[in-house]
């Protein structure tokens, strides 16, 4: 397998998917690495038709796991306040508001079910069609549609009542 070509061609897309969810490069690096190593194992079992989709799905799954860990263990929510949008130079207040909303969305995502969070991240954030997501998740497209719909409902609920300064929560003591 020409991993150099695969990583050069498809790695950035998968890395950016992880970065969207986690907000920092170091974590995205780790997620892509994990995704690549998991892909090695998967490729032994079955032929891979779409490396980009596979790596993106795996990197997103790793990122969601980390996100869940982060917010269920009282890690510092400020980890999300990276200057993702700084290069576009909106007004400072707008930047702060957008940062805050992104942070709230990440916190909310951490509280969705695994399936809902995955479907939402692939379809809503990565721009996959439901059919593409269905193929990777090995589930009917209609199920993906339902998952994304329910994810949006739940996210809206969670963000509606979100603390303006989100504090990570813990699922168990």
């Amino acid at each position: 397998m020409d991993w150099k070509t695969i990583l050069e061609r498809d790695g950035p897309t998968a890395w950016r998917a992880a970065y969207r969810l986690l907000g920092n490069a170091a974590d995205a690096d780790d997620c892509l690495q994990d995704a690549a190593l998991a892909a090695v194992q998967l490729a032994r079992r079955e032929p891979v038709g779409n490396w980009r989709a596979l790596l993106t799905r795996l990197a997103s799954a790793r990122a969601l796991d980390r996100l869940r860990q982060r917010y269920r263990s009282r890690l510092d929510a400020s980890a999300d306040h990276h200057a993702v949008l700084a290069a576009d130079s909106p007004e400072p207040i707008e930047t702060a508001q957008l940062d805050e909303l992104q942070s709230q969305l990440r916190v909310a995502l951490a509280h969705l079910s695994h399936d809902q969070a995955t479907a939402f991240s692939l379809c809503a954030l990565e721009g996959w069609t439901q059919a593409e997501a269905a193929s990777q998740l090995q589930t009917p497209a209609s199920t993906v549609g339902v998952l994304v719909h329910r994810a949006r409902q739940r996210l809206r609920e969670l963000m509606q009542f979100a603390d303006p300064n989100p504090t990570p929560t813990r699922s168990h003591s």
Partner: protein
Amino acid sequence: MNTNHTPLDPLDTAEAALRELPVHITPSTATLDRIAMLAMNAEAQPMTTISTSSTGRGWRKIIALLLTAAASVAAIYSITQTTQPSFAFEDVVSAVKKADTVSYTTVITPKTGPASQLKTYHKGTLTRTVYPDSSYSVMDMAGAKMLMVQPAMKTATLTLLGSKPTDLPPMGESIVAWLKSAEATGKAVGEKTIDGVRTRGFETAFGATTMTIWGDPQTKLPVQIESTIGSDATSFQMTMRDFIFNAPLEDALFSTEPPAGYKVKKSAQPAVDYMALVKLPPEEHVVKILKFYAGLSDGAFPERIDGPELIAKLTSKMDEKQLEDPQFMKEFTTLAGSMGATWTFRQTLQKFGYVGTAKLNDKDSIVFWYLPKDAENYRVVYADLTIGNVPEGKIPSVPMK
């Protein structure tokens, strides 16, 4: 980013902000090259060493080593002491016990700072652990030796273990120890898909540790084990994942011969009789732990006495000189065994408690107590580290830890 966009609601705005990631945010070429190299290595050699991008600190290595040592002792302790029958996850325990080899990745994520990733391979009594900086260790329990190799410095340290604990169970049993904790107190927590596998989860808590095991109902084997260890500023997350069972592991992977051309240092580890250690009653383990901790902490006792959280606290108090001191290391090695034994207290003791607010030599203060089986009085450890027996009315009225 379209700053003129009129947000429909917070979700739409946040979603758009995340989706419209600036194009310049991409991985570095070096990162892609490094990961490609790792993937090629992994593909060429299924069980090759895997380094990670995370930076490692010395204490995390120590934690990892001690976790392994302590888990081994915990395994023996639980096997010899636990009488509770399996009920929730016995298939997983059984499947793990039958495995000839196992490898897995352990990710340790402190509350602050970067995560560290270890790769561990077990084959019988042989263990290979690969650390974040690409250094690795090979532990040969039957041969009573350990090789630590640091490729970056082209150095290797061969440590002859002072004792030859041939009676120890295979290191893979350490996983069983964790699973035994789950079956004793675990509760089902639903299902989750991990890397395409639909798993069922069991959650358990012991001491300051909360652990969830995700198992594959088809193979009966664990897919991922997630732990939250500790509850204060030193707490950390530990996730064991990427389990591969019964894959052939070449003997060369577990060679304790230093690589050619490396500068070799030889050392001898203090003799520790683990089998004798696990036969000690709980109060003697506690005395060892408290004495060691208080010696590093101006007489103060730890908040808790159970497991990895304590290891993290202890290692944070150590310095390099102490790690080079044979006597210190002997005590520390012994201590790791005692800490392993304390992990299983919750399973084996009906009533016990600990309160670490006293200081060393507060002779009238009870810091640890438990009720032995069929006994009327509690066995207690006082803050001056003496041991006694008292009736229930005299033990401290604080929550059990």
